[in-house]
């Protein structure tokens, strides 16, 4: 009884802390600017919802094909470089989407080298505008697929060979085996990754504006920055929040309980030989180069022209970025782990419905989350100064900044843990309990080994996102506390990409660090 209370208390407390600033946005519904709303409804609302929807579908398909496809290839086959690529396929996550977008447009658009060359060869070829919906989907899929890859990859590793053999004996076709048997087993991981992809796509502003593709988030920015109406922007944000809530709720509902076999027989990978080996290997390396190689090479070329002065200013931002990424990744993962461990065997429906609330921060545009957090802090600060007379500072401190990251990135950590906890073996756990193992021993010997991959994935995703984060860092950082993302922004805001290339390159290399450290590993050929 008492533990239930404590559990509820922690659960509820977390939800309030994390969702509080976002719920503050709801308070903006008190006054409605009807003239502005009429305009938005007439010219934007539906059209932009549809645009967002198209983007979600496109990026969903793109990231699922790439993510699951690559996870399957690296799980099932062994070929030249498969060991390296198993880990390397998550690396594109280090590239901020708008940087990838800019590089893609720089190469593929009208004034890029390809079209310029084509025009010198045959001048009548005309102009092909690369800024279209396919371009956005293409670029976003290439930077976001690692979520799906990472979160479904270790689900593959848990496949049970014996089930598949039975199906084979029963004469099922390969595709039937994949879609009917294998796919359901990797579903929680796939869905968890897909949800992250969708939330990031919903929240994106930088990439879509490069392509002139207006989404619902564009409308939020426009309402705030151009119509000067923070209130209406907050109202629109709450609509976005509702969409995200529905997505998360749907994901939670369709989360299948994975039947856990106490003993699984590992499925030995196929060691490819001959032509098949060459083809699979070539394809994999090509995809890897397209995702990471091309942008890196372009940035290296640009950054060779970056003035030395810009390079010299990067040491401090680099160490600041590392400190922030490390501290936030540990804090946020610990809290998400706490939530998951309380929750995974929970049958308390009310508590379960609270969980999606803690994940909303990732679906909102970064600036909106940053401002909501800032407003939340100042309300708390004002309250404390009024009631207690303490001039407490939260915003403008590192703690405040990490708090803002917590609100924005909590879902990354908790989504990473979904799959691990979904396959947690309640049987083993209960057995251990009845055998009288202490909670700590149960944790160390049963829970932790099973959930470790999820926790590592959480640390990885949070730290790489913190490295890239901009809006909250801009608004809430201590004075003079520059990060690499800030240095990139300083130049890209003025469309000065030659100067931006150096900090962007360092930023991506920094992001590769945690990604490589916590990369998924190829299963040993036992």
């Amino acid at each position, binding site marked *: 009884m008492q533990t239930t209370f404590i559990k509820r208390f922690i659960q509820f407390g977390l939800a309030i802390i994390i969702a509080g600033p976002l719920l503050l946005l709801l308070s903006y519904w008190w006054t409605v600017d009807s003239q502005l709303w009429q*305009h938005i409804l007439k*010219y934007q609302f539906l059209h932009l919802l549809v645009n967002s929807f198209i983007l979600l579908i496109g990026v969903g398909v793109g990231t699922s094909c790439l993510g699951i496809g690559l996870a399957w290839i690296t799980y099932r086959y062994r070929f030249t470089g498969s060991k390296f690529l198993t880990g390397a396929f998550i690396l594109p996550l280090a590239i901020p989407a708008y940087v990838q977008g800019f590089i893609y447009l720089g190469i593929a658009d*009208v*004034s890029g080298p390809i*079209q*310029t060359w084509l*025009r010198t060869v045959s001048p009548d070829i005309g*102009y092909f*505008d690369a*800024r279209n919906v396919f371009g956005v989907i293409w670029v976003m899929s290439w930077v976001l697929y690692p979520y799906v890859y990472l979160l479904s990859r270790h689900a593959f590793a848990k496949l049970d060979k014996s089930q598949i053999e039975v199906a084979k004996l029963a004469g099922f076709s390969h595709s039937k085996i994949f879609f009917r048997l294998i796919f359901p087993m990797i579903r929680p991981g796939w869905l968890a990754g897909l949800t992250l992809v969708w939330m990031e796509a919903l929240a994106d502003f930088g990439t879509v*504006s*490069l*392509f*002139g593709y*207006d989404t619902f988030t*564009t409308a939020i*920015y*426009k309402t*705030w*920055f*151009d*119509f*000067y109406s*923070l209130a209406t922007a907050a109202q629109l944000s709450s609509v976005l929040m509702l969409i995200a809530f529905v997505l998360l709720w749907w994901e939670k509902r369709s989360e299948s309980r994975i039947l856990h076999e106490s003993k699984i027989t590992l499925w030995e990978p196929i060691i490819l030989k001959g032509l098949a080996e060459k083809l699979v290997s070539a394809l994999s390396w090509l995809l890897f180069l397209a995702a990471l190689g091309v942008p890196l090479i372009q940035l290296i070329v640009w950054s060779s022209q970056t003035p030395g002065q810009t390079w010299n200013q990067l040491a401090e931002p680099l160490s600041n970025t590392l400190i922030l990424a490390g*501290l936030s990744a540990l804090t946020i993962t610990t809290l998400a782990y706490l939530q998951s461990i309380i929750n995974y065997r929970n049958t308390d429906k009310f508590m379960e419905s609270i969980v999606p609330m803690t994940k909303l921060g990732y679906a909102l545009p970064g*600036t909106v989350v*940053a*401002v909501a957090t*800032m*407003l939340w802090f*100042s309300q708390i*600060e*004002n309250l404390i*100064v009024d009631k207690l*007379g*303490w*001039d*407490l*500072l939260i*915003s*403008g*401190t*590192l*703690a*405040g900044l990490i708090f803002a990251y917590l609100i924005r990135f909590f879902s990354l950590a908790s989504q990473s843990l979904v799959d691990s906890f979904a396959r947690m073996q309640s049987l083993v756990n209960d057995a251990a309990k009845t055998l009288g193992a202490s909670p700590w021993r149960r944790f160390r010997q049963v829970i932790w080994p099973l959930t470790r991959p999820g926790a590592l994935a959480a640390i990885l995703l949070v730290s790489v996102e913190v490295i890239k984060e901009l*809006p909250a860092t*801009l*608004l809430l*950082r*201590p*004075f*003079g506390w520059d990060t690499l993302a*800030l240095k990139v922004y*300083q*130049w890209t*805001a*003025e*469309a*000065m990409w030659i*100067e931006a290339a150096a900090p962007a390159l360092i930023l991506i290399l920094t992001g590769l660090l945690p990604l490589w450290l916590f990369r998924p590993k190829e299963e040993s050929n036992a």
Partner: protein
Amino acid sequence: MKTLLTFAAAATLTITASANPLVIYSERNEQLIKPLLDRYSEVSGVEYELLIDKSAPLIAKLKAEGKRTQADILITVDAGNLWHAANEGVLQSVESTTLEEKVPAELQDPNNQWFALTVRARTIVFHKDRVNPADLSTYEALADDKWKGRLCLRTSKKVYNQSLVGSMINRLGEDKTMDIVSGWVKNLATQPTSSDTKALDAILAGQCDVALVNTYYFGRKVKEDPSLPLEIFWPNQQTSGVHINVSGAGVTKHSDQPDAAIAFLEWMVSDEAQAMYASMDMEFPVVKGAKLDPIVESWGNFKADSNPVYKAGEYQRKAVMLMDAAQYK
């Protein structure tokens, strides 16, 4: 008892200088402001802290912080943003004869809540080989059929275009402006670009022949490649004059050292600061007679729109709505 409590981790990291530094919230990016602030520290001995963000979040922050704000100065670009800051009540009226004398009346707030520090012109840039400058005349004339498929514009989401259209609504009324903006959209060679630089690139690639850009974007390009086949045209010289916009600053409402803040603004309109500030991003100084960047000087004199720039703020909302209705993306 007033206790200053900061979180343990942050306590060592928040800067607590002994003398009161000037705290500046700036929309202008670091590379375009810091050298100037460093120079001010050198001549005055006053230290500073800088926080950079877009103007909307900065204004929201000032509002939320209220009396407890540490900020003394707000620097933003675009008159619309300055107007908005004044409108939101985060700035205070300033009495300074220096600022009054040096900053022209049309480039400051009627209640002295902000003052322009630099001026930029939004003008026409054309391709030397494909356009006869005699064919160019006004912003309005770019809506003529002869520019069909030859015009490049930046997105209407950029405040510079909103201010331009706002000034046209002020000058010509909504109906006429609507016709012109629709004409522009009809003449577009490609969908609006994400930046002025991209619009210039599109001319260079041959996709279009003319574009509307801020002068300094053109200046930066010329600096990179002096042989660029592009040229500036000053429109509306027989009529209203070239549309100008400003970057500017004001003293925050709850600054606890307004005198120091005013002293800083007064220094900003000194000849030294003006020459430095304007040349840093190839803009025009706000004070007559201050030295110009050689590239900027080479563009020659022009007649500027003499309507007060704050009108842009008043008409911004109408301008954005009008551009939406005209399907200018």
